């Protein structure tokens, strides 16, 4: 299974942000867009085209799944949830990025990192 996770890495920025947004709770498309914007402090904004293009791939790859919610408002929208395999892929990507950050911290002087 570990080998399967490795073949998805590195994740594209949009994919990473979508999985990160879904890591907290199930969200509909617009909710994902808002969550991505919030997590990135407004520096990364997804458009609907980019969002659903990536969601389609994540659904097909089995990293994300659709969930159905009861209730008038919720039933009108589709909600998406990152499944356990998706979480493993996300965790592997975070670990990879963490290693990159550590390497950067070791190689670059502190003043350059603050700049």
């Amino acid at each position, binding site marked *: 299974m570990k080998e399967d996770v490795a073949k998805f890495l590195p994740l594209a920025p949009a994919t990473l942000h979508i999985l990160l947004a879904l890591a907290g709770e199930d969200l*509909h*498309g*617009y909710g994902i*867009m808002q969550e991505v914007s919030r997590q990135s402090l407004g520096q990364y*904004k997804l*458009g*609907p*085209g*980019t969002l*659903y*293009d990536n*969601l*389609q*791939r994540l659904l*097909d790859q089995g990293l994300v799944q659709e969930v159905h919610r009861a209730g008038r408002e919720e039933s009108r*929208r*589709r909600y998406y949830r990152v499944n356990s395999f998706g979480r493993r892929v996300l965790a592997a990507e975070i670990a990879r990025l963490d290693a990159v950050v550590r390497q950067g911290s070791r190689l670059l002087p502190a003043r350059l990192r603050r700049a």
Partner: protein
Amino acid sequence: MDRLLYVWLVGLHPRQFRERFGQEMIGIYDEHTGNGRHAALFIDLLISLFRQWMLRPAHHEPALSIALPATSSDTPVFQLLDSSLPRRSALVKGAILTLIWFSAMTLFIGRTGHPPRFLIATRTPRPQVLGVGEPAAWRGEPTTQIKLKAEGEDPLYPFAKAYFRMIRVLDILDANHDWIISPWEIITVPAALRRLDQNHDGKLSPEECGFFVGENPKTKLDPQVVQRARLDFMRLNPVLAALDADHDGEISAGEIQNATAALKTLDQNLDGRLTPDEVLPDALTLQRQ
């Protein structure tokens, strides 16, 4: 209006994607309407359109499946048939590649000033590439003679222009108005001459051939002078003189019938056609010389 355009662009996505996410995308557009990010939404949608058609071929239309009727053994037979039409993604790719290729070639030719050299044809195999401007046939083997109109070079042509207009017989014989009576035009002389017969008496008078003395009522011309002028008109113009074989001042029905043979007598160099120097009166030819 913007919303209609957005909905239309969403509709251009592959069917599977459109049916799955189209409504949600439009819903998100509606929620974004107030925050002034229209341009970003449209750019994002166009990128998505490109991605879906160019990078996601697996999500396009599935193959058409047709169930055939059961056979005698009651075993259902299924057959998968691909659509006979090319996939839309293939068409889009083809269009983009064509555009890129055309633009690159245009740019290349524009920059270098020389068109690329392609091998078109060669009768004798040669190792080098044949240039566009070079003849395909081996030099020294001309098979076709091309004769170009020499207007502007031969000083007779200005006379010929005016003369052909004046002599109606010549004007109607020279169907393509190149001031040369070609072999084909000579063959069709009788039919052309009959078209000049305005009074339908079966023969051509000098007036029908182009003779004109004016219609001023104050200047009454002597009929004998006019008759002499008519005869001179038919006698001095080589073409009319050749056609009017009996020199009676008219081209009779029989002479019209024999017009082709009569005109061939003017062909001095026997090249099968009548050039201005063969049909102009001697005075004009001498004037040229």
